[in-house]
C-alpha cells in the first residue's frame, strides 16, 4: 500500500538529527579542576582525545532517545497517509472556450502544466479529462498523460461567445464523480462556481482596442460602410488601421481613443469591389482587430403576377418592398407567384404562391366573430384585431391546410404545404378589406416570402459572425454533391443531410460555401461578441492551493496509530530529559561532596 506524506514540509524536522548530533559532538566547555592524581590518569588511555572541539560521538541513552524523538516528530509532522483505494484519481478540467481565452492561450498551458500535475503527484495514476465549457462542448482530452493533455491544448483555439459554463461543469462533475476533482479554467472569476468546482483563472486586464460592429448601406449605387471601434481599456490608446481590398491597401492611419471611447469610421466600397477588410494594429487580443465586409445580397427571388387587376396595386407595392426580387420575364420560371381566387370562377393555384381571394362583386356583409391567430411562426406576434373582412364564399379547404387565422368559424388565412406546393391563401376578399393597411398582413406576406427565399438553392452574399449557424438551402437529393466550405486557408466538407450543422468559420475572414458547381453562400465571418473583447474583469486567481490536501484526504487514510506516536514522542522527550538531567547532575555536582 503506497505511503504518501500530506505535509512534506514536515521533513524539515529531520534537520533536528544533525543538530542533535552536532550538539553531542561539540565538546562541552572544560571544567578546570585541580588534581593530585594526575600521574594515575596520565597512564590511562593515552590515545583518548584531547583538546579537540569535536569529539567522537558518545553512545548515550539521551542521544538515542533524542534521535528517536526527532524521527517520531518527523513522522507526525509529515502526516503520513496510505492510499485508500487503487482506483485512478480523476481530474476534470473544464476550460473556458470563450474567445477571450485566446488572449491567454500560452498562459493557460503554462498554468495547467505547472499547477495541475502537482495536485495528484503524491497519488497513483491520475485520469485527466478536459472538456470545453460551452454547451455541447468537445472533449479535448481524456487519458493519464499530462504531456498529451498539453499537446491537445496547444492545438485548441477558444472561439466561442460568452456563455455559462454550468452545463459543462455539470458534465464535468458527473465525469469526475463525487470524489474527483473538477477545475474550471477561465480568464475571470465567476461569482459562484457550482458543483464544487475549483477555479484556475489565468487572465489579466489587457489594453484591447477592436471593432465592435459594422453597417453596410447598399441603397445607393456605390455601397458604403460604417464600422465602430472601441477602446476597452481604461487608458487612452492609439492604433493604426488600414483598409484592404483585393491586393491593395491604404496607407496606415492613426486613430486615438480615450478610455472606453467608441468611435465610428465610414467609407465607401472601392469601385467595382464588393469586399473589403479593415485591419487594426495588432494587440494581445487579435480576434477583433480585423473586420471583413462584403456587400450583402440576398438570394434572388423571381416573382410572377397572376392576380386579378384588383390586387395589382397591392402586389406592386409588395414587390417593390422586396430586395432582389424581380418579376420574372420571358421563359424565366418564377419562384413565387401572386395569384387571386374568385370563388365564382375558381382556378388552380400556382405551386408556390400567395393567393388573395377576390370576389368581383362587392360582398355586402362583414364577417363576425372574434379574430384568433394560430400558434404558428408565420403569425406569431401579429395583431389582426383591426381586420375588417366581408362575407364571401370560402376557398374550398383541404386536409393539409393549416389555418393561421380565424374569425368565428371562418379560417381567414390558410397555409397549404404538401409536396412541391407552398401556398399562402388569404381566405377573405383582400381588395374589399382593410388588410393592406394592417402591418400584420404585410409582415405575414414578408415572412412567407422569406421562407420561400430561404428554401431556394441559390447564391447568397452576407456577413456573419464567427461560428454562426448557416441555415442554407441545399440540394438534398440522392445524388446531391457534398457541401464545401472554404476560407482560402482550409476547406470543410459536409454531407448535404448535415447542412443544418454548418457554421461559419471560427476565425475571421472571407469564406464561400458551394455544393458542386452551385455556389450557396459568399460571406464573411467576423468577431462580434464585444463582451469577450472587454478584459476589464480578467484576472488571475486560483483556488487550487487547498486541493492537494483535500485530494489526498479523499483518496488516503491517515495513520491510525498517531496517538501512539504522540505518546511515544512524549515518553521519549521525558526520557531524554530524565537522563540528561541525571547526567548533568553528575557532571555539575561539586567533587568531594557528591558522595558525602
Amino acid at each position, binding site marked *: 500500500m503506497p505511503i504518501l506524506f500530506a505535509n512534506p514540509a514536515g521533513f524539515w524536522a529531520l534537520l533536528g538529527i544533525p543538530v542533535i548530533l552536532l550538539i553531542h559532538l561539540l565538546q562541552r566547555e572544560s571544567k578546570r579542576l585541580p588534581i*593530585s592524581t594526575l600521574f594515575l*590518569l596520565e597512564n590511562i588511555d593515552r590515545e583518548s582525545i584531547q583538546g579537540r572541539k569535536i569529539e567522537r560521538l558518545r553512545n548515550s541513552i539521551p542521544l538515542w532517545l533524542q534521535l528517536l524523538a526527532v524521527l517520531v516528530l518527523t513522522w507526525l509532522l509529515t502526516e503520513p497517509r496510505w492510499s485508500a483505494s487503487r482506483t485512478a484519481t480523476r481530474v476534470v478540467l473544464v476550460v473556458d472556450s470563450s474567445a477571450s481565452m485566446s488572449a491567454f492561450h500560452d498562459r493557460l498551458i503554462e498554468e495547467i502544466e505547472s499547477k495541475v500535475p502537482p495536485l495528484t503527484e503524491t497519488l497513483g495514476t491520475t485520469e485527466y479529462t478536459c472538456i470545453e465549457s460551452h454547451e455541447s462542448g468537445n472533449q479535448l482530452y481524456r487519458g493519464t498523460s499530462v504531456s498529451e493533455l498539453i499537446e491537445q491544448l496547444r492545438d485548441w483555439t477558444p472561439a466561442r461567445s460568452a456563455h455559462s459554463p454550468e452545463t459543462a461543469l455539470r458534465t464535468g462533475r458527473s465525469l469526475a464523480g463525487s470524489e474527483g476533482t473538477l477545475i474550471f479554467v477561465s480568464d475571470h472569476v465567476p461569482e459562484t462556481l457550482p458543483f464544487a468546482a475549483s477555479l484556475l483563472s489565468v487572465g489579466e486586464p489587457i489594453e484591447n482596442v477592436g471593432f465592435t460592429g459594422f453597417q453596410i448601406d447598399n441603397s445607393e449605387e456605390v455601397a458604403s460602410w460604417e464600422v465602430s471601434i472601441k477602446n476597452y481599456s481604461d487608458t487612452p490608446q492609439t492604433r493604426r488601421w488600414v483598409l484592404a481590398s483585393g491586393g491593395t491597401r491604404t496607407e496606415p492611419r492613426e486613430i486615438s481613443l480615450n478610455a472606453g471611447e467608441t468611435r465610428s469610421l465610414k467609407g465607401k466600397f472601392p469601385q467595382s469591389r464588393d469586399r473589403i477588410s479593415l485591419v487594426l494594429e495588432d494587440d494581445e487580443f487579435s480576434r477583433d482587430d480585423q473586420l471583413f465586409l462584403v456587400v450583402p445580397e440576398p438570394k434572388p427571388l423571381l416573382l410572377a403576377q397572376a392576380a386579378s387587376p384588383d390586387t395589382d396595386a397591392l402586389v406592386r407595392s409588395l414587390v417593390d418592398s422586396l430586395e432582389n426580387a424581380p418579376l420574372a420575364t420571358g421563359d424565366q420560371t418564377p419562384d413565387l407567384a401572386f395569384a387571386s381566387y374568385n370563388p365564382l370562377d375558381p382556378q388552380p393555384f400556382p405551386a408556390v404562391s400567395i393567393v388573395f381571394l377576390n370576389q368581383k362583386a362587392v360582398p355586402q356583409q362583414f364577417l363576425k366573430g372574434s379574430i384568433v391567430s394560430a400558434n404558428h411562426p408565420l403569425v406569431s406576434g401579429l395583431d389582426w384585431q383591426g381586420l375588417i373582412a366581408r362575407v364571401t364564399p370560402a376557398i374550398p379547404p383541404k386536409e393539409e391546410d393549416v389555418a393561421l387565422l380565424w374569425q368565428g368559424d371562418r379560417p381567414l388565412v390558410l397555409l397549404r404545404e404538401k409536396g412541391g406546393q407552398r401556398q399562402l391563401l388569404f381566405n377573405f376578399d383582400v381588395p374589399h378589406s382593410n388588410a393592406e393597411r394592417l402591418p400584420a398582413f404585410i409582415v405575414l406576406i414578408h415572412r412567407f416570402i422569406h421562407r420561400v427565399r430561404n428554401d431556394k438553392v441559390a447564391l447568397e452574399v452576407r456577413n456573419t459572425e464567427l461560428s454562426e449557424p448557416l441555415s442554407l438551402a441545399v440540394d438534398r437529393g440522392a445524388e446531391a454533391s457534398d457541401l464545401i466550405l472554404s476560407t482560402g486557408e482550409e476547406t470543410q466538407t459536409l454531407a448535404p443531410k448535415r447542412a443544418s450543422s454548418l457554421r461559419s468559420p471560427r476565425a475571421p475572414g472571407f469564406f464561400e460555401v458551394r455544393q458542386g458547381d452551385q455556389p450557396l453562400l459568399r460571406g464573411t465571418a467576423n468577431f462580434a461578441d464585444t463582451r469577450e473583447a472587454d478584459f476589464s474583469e480578467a484576472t488571475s486567481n486560483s483556488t487550487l492551493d487547498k486541493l492537494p490536501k483535500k485530494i489526498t484526504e479523499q483518496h488516503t487514510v491517515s495513520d491510525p496509530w498517531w496517538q501512539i506516536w504522540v505518546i511515544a514522542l512524549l515518553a521519549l522527550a521525558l526520557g531524554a530529559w530524565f537522563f540528561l538531567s541525571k547526567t548533568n547532575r553528575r557532571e555539575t555536582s561539586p567533587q568531594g561532596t557528591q558522595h558525602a
Partner: protein
Amino acid sequence: MHPTLETLDLPGIATRARAHAGLFTLPLKEQNWKGSTGDFAGSGVGASLDFQDHRLYAPGDDPRHINWQAYARTGEYTLKLYREEVRPIVEILFDTSDSMFSDPEKAERALELFYFLYAAGEQAGAATSACVIRGDHWKPLEIASVFSHHWVDIVSDLPPTEPSARPNLTAIPSKSRSLRILLSDLLFPDSPEQTLQILKRNGGRPIILCPFTQTESDPGWLGNYDFIDSESGRRHERRVDTPLLNRYLETYRRHFERWKSAALRIHSPFARVPSATKFEAALKLEAIPAGALSLL
C-alpha cells in the same frame, strides 16, 4: 605557605589533636623498644620489675643482681635478669608535598593526623621527633615549632619538587629501633617496597598513615576537564567518560593495593584515613583495625 594552609585554623586543629590523643595512642606496647629509660619495655635487660631470664654470672656483671637463693641451692652464681624499661623513639615523617594540601579537607585531615601523632607520641612519653619532607628535601622540626605552628614556614621554605615526586627518605637520619610513622598520601608512582625498606632500616618499625579524599578515590568525573596538577600546575585537558573513569578507579585501587600488600609483607601497619568523615570515625575505619593506632 601553601594557600590552603593559610585558610586552616591550625591552633584549633592542634587543640582537637590533643583531645584525640586522649582517645587514641600509638601502638608502642606491642614491641620492645630501644631508648633511654622510660615506661615501655626495652629490648635489653633493665631494672624494671619484670623478670626476664636467668644466666650464669660473668665477670663485670652487677653483683647486685646475683640470685643468692639459687647460689645457696646450687653453689653457682647465677644472675636474675629483669626487662629493661625504655622511652621509645617516635619519628614522624610528614610528607608536605603540595598534593597533601591540594584539597582543604585532605589538608585538614593531614594536619589533624600530624598534630595527633605528635601529641600522642608525647603523651605516651616517647621521644617524639618530626621532620617535614618534600621530594628530596627535608627539615627536622623543633618541638617548639610544631605547636607554635612555625613549622608551616619551614615547609614553605622547602624548594618545589617535580610533580609526583617520591619523598626521599634515604637522606633522613633515623634512630635505630624507632617507630617511624610516614604521613603521606603516597601519590607518587615509585615502588612501595623501596620506601618501606628505607623505613624499616636500623630496626625501625614503619607505620603508614595515608590521608585521602573521595575526589581522589571516587572523583565522579564525567565530561571535559582541564586538570591542573596540584604540584606542578601543569594543565591536562581530558574528556572523561565512564570507561575512562572506571579505568582510573581501577588504577587508583591497584596503586594502594600494592602499598597495602607491601606493608603486610613486612608486618607494618598501613592505614588509609578518609578526609570526609570525622576524625574518630576515620581512624576506626582502617587505622585501628590495622594496628597503626590503638585505643586507649
